[in-house]
């Protein structure tokens, strides 16, 4: 009997990727891009969309051909599929959003090596049917996106006083001596912020690593 498209199990697959097994805070994957592109909300949004699309659709493609891939070359096949998707996204960005692609520089290409994409392919798509793989990819992508958007918003507001380029810090603050937090747009600020977010998320969800 065919399972309903959005049955309980399917919904769980989707929701797990967003909270319980969030790729960044639980699986510890995809940290590199989470820190690198979040100096501004705009680049964080573009990276989130890009990664969600790549994860979801590469999951589907690999899941469809999973029974025909010889085990010795499966990493190569996976990388090829992912590279093709990332090349398309990169060409699209260069054509239609050129300034943003300049800011993202190498990080669009680095979606290929983003551990979330490869991790979900190996862990889920290689053993599950296409619709479930799509939900899993979508859920993980959205979980990643939520962390990225959170970090991007905080870093942009406190680091430059803007959101998506629009000034949100009232000029009266600056007049009274408020200064933009320079550390937020630099590397250390990103590390600290991610550490604190992980701390908060794990306090709420109750997960902690056994040392």
């Amino acid at each position, binding site marked *: 009997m065919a399972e309903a498209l959005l049955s309980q199990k399917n919904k769980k697959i989707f929701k797990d990727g967003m909270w319980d097994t969030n790729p960044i805070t639980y699986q510890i994957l995809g940290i590199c*891009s989470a820190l690198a592109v979040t100096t501004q909300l705009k680049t964080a949004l573009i990276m989130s969309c890009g990664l969600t699309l790549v994860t979801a659709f590469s999951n589907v493609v690999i899941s469809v051909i999973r029974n025909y891939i010889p085990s010795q070359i499966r990493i190569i096949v996976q990388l090829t599929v992912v590279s093709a998707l990332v*090349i398309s996204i990169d060409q699209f960005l260069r054509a239609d959003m050129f300034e943003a692609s300049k800011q993202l*520089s190498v990080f669009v290409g680095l979606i290929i*090596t983003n551990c979330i994409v490869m991790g979900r392919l190996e862990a889920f798509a290689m053993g599950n049917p296409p619709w479930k793989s799509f939900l899993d990819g979508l859920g993980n992508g959205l979980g990643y996106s939520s962390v990225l958007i959170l970090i991007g918003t905080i870093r942009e507001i406190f680091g430059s006083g803007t959101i998506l380029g629009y000034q949100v810090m009232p000029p009266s603050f600056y007049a009274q001596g408020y200064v933009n937090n320079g550390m937020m747009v630099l590397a*250390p600020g990103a590390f600290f912020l991610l*550490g604190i977010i992980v701390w908060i998320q*794990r306090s709420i969800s109750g997960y*902690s690593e056994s040392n």
Partner: protein
Amino acid sequence: MDIVHYVNLAIKSIFVENILLAFFLGNCSYIACSKKIDTAMGLGIAVVFVMLICTPACWAIKNFFLAKGAMAWTHITALANVDLSFLIFISFIAVIAAMTQIVEMLVEKFSPALYSALGIFLPLIAVNCAILGAALFMDQRNYNFLESVVFGLGGGIGWALAIVAMAAIRKKLAYSNIPAPLRGLGITMLLSGLMSMGFMCFAGIRL
């Protein structure tokens, strides 16, 4: 270009623009493998080796096959103006995957202890963002051959430096009383932030 330029490039890629602490590349294996110093050292050396080989190899692929007009050396007029740069991602990752496979075979032959200690992380060097990232930076900045060698070596050494330092710190952390939600990933991030601040101090070095 004189030797000072290359030494400056080396210092820049090891310390000032440390590929992990400034560009965040290679974080996943860094966090996962920095619990013990031996594993960290082994992985660091493997990454140095792979990066040193892959960056010039990718330079060659780009400059002899993929860049605009690169295939003029074949003297085939049809190929003289072809621009295959959109294939850069896929050819770079193919070179890196092949090189990693070779390094894995070498490590298994010459050091089985290191091979079993590294486990899954050795093949995972292929998807370590640091390697592809170094190759893509080399492409973006249009380095020449010698610059790409120096950059690959420097990037690898910088990454190895960061992971060994983190392993040493985490070894001391075993005696600390860290709150449960902060253990593992959280505290590593906070420590990396402090290390990153420390490495920023190198920004003033000029030869």
